[in-house]
């Protein structure tokens, strides 16, 4: 039994053996932009920023074992840089110090890496930073209308309220109606009708 437990520590240790099927929680959540402050001393940072500002630097970068910080100032900065978004700390270094295989596989995404159904939508949505994204709460097949001949729930320009059903995601023969959970105007639809979607994959972009 040891292995059984070993993979599933804490409260998740027990598989619900022989109980009724679990319903995936069909509630959308806004994905939290995962923040992990890896012991950044804000006072130091503030002082640094002050110094850089006063001295009119356009760029500043500092790196230590597992820690890297970089600043840049000035109008033209934003245009060119890939990682131009101001302060980028531990998150950045995780990807940027690609070390071992992370780079590897990142650069090889098209060849050796797994094919993800949501890869294209993810890329598109990441460019629409001004939009509010409705992600898929479950894995399944995306349908824009309640039946093949019916009208789509929403289209570009539709106004939605939190309770508005925006699509159906079919999972295990069950049709799950997905609600907008916020109000706004549909500005983008990232997924084709009938296409498989994975958890967290962007479905719609709303203008608030």
């Amino acid at each position: 039994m040891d292995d059984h437990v070993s993979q599933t520590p804490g409260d998740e240790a027990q598989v619900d053996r022989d109980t009724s099927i679990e319903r995936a929680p069909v509630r959308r959540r806004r994905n939290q932009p995962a923040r992990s402050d890896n012991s950044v001393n804000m006072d130091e940072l503030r002082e640094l920023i002050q110094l850089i500002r006063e001295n009119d630097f356009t760029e500043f970068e500092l790196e230590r074992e597992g820690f890297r910080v970089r600043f840049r100032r000035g109008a033209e900065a934003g245009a060119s840089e890939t990682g131009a978004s101001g302060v980028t700390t531990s998150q950045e270094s995780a990807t940027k110090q690609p070390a071992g295989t992370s780079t590897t596989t990142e650069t090889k995404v098209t060849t050796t890496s797994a094919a993800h159904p949501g890869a294209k939508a993810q890329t598109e949505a990441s460019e629409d930073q001004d939009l509010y994204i409705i992600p898929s709460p479950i894995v399944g097949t995306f349908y824009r209308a309640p039946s093949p001949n019916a009208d789509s729930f929403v289209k570009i320009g539709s106004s939605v309220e939190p309770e508005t059903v925006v699509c159906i995601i079919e999972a295990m023969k069950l049709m799950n109606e997905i609600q907008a959970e916020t109000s706004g105007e549909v500005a983008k639809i990232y997924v084709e009708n009938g296409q498989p979607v994975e958890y967290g994959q962007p479905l719609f972009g709303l203008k608030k």
Partner: protein
Amino acid sequence: MSTAPRKFKKILIANRGEIACRIIWTCKEMGIRTVAVHSDVDRDSLHVRFADEAACIGPAPSAQSYLNIPAIISTAEIFNVDAIHPGYGFLAESSYFAEICAACNIKFIGPPAPIIRLMGDKVKARRAMAEAGLTVLPGSPDPVTSEEEGLKLAREIGFPVIVKAAGGGGGRGMRIVQAPEELGKALEAASNEAAAAFKDGSVYIERYVQNPRHIEIQVLADEYGDCIHLGERECSIQRRHQKLLEEAPSPVLSPELRNEMGDAAVAACKKLGYASAGTVEFLLDEDNKFYFMEMNTRIQVEHPVTEMVTLADIVRNQIRIAEGERLGYTQDDLLIVGHAIECRINAENPETFAPSPGLITAFNLPGGPGVRVDTYVYAGYRVPPFYDSMIAKVIVHARTRDLAIARMKRALEAMVIEGIKTTIPLHLKIMDDPRFKAGDISTNFMEHFLTQNGSKIAKNRNGAVALAG
């Protein structure tokens, strides 16, 4: 039970970590496409990178991702897979999941659901295996319902006895009872613990064996009634019923005893109608008498030591059997060459055993003769805090046990993992331990070892290390 052979084109792997990678390797060798499922924190895991297709099925908590049956089945249907390999842990021993797979016309790579269910209930498994011819420790045939009944039983068995949960393992719901007056309290405590851990407060009583060894037999059975064993694994080195390192063969088994235990396991599996890879766990006492403990109806963490000494690919055999192929080997084909040891490398403080997730800043794997490393991490990978702490397995193979120990030592010395703490230093100390080197081990080994080595950890809360689950 038996069906016509069917070749799998695509398999979904309902797991993560090193075992998901391990399964991918064999699928690649067999020309079978793989689908990885993963939680949203596991996007950078190697099993996702090396699978042919992948889907994110939920957030970090296992209950919403790796244990989320509807999401997994839904993914299997979307990707149109032929079969699901559950690995170990998570859904590997869920008879319910196996049934859902069957209902959805997806082959579950494992034994039939009723056998999974039977082996999941420790009381029923004990009875079934006793009926199938295995010796079990003297104990209660059914869950004990009252203190009087328990006291009567315990006196028949003779003290010390052990109280165990019917519904689970891993050391929870266990109490060692030295004398009659302790029994009532132990029954109550174990039952409460079992109810909390397994949603089932049933407990039973068994004879308690001093200095037992944990010896398990790897079996392979096909859907046509053929069954062989691949020898034993010695798994006595455990801490709180978690195996730390395993060996094949056991330093104490004579060829005769190996055959005896192996034949007993095979005979029982045949009677049960077992089909797939599986492990029959025995307790071996100081007189070389062996007693059935439980059966694991899945691939095990420690399967590589058997692979090293037999050159069998156990995952390949699981898949072939699930495809409806015949075993194709007889017991006489078994050849055990040399000695193998596996050390489980956990992301833990090696002294306090506190988990140590985080960013791996440097990573170097040992090479050279007779070294295998199964892992899913790499330099730059952040070990998430949500799952099991095992990040790698180092397995060595050499002509003799002494050479294997020397080889493990140098492999561990050449294995560099920085940024997080790991159990490598603990394993290095075990390799230097005179009792370990002499093969003088039992499931009590780690308790003594940690005391001698001035470990900072608290003892098992039961105040004693009980039988291995």
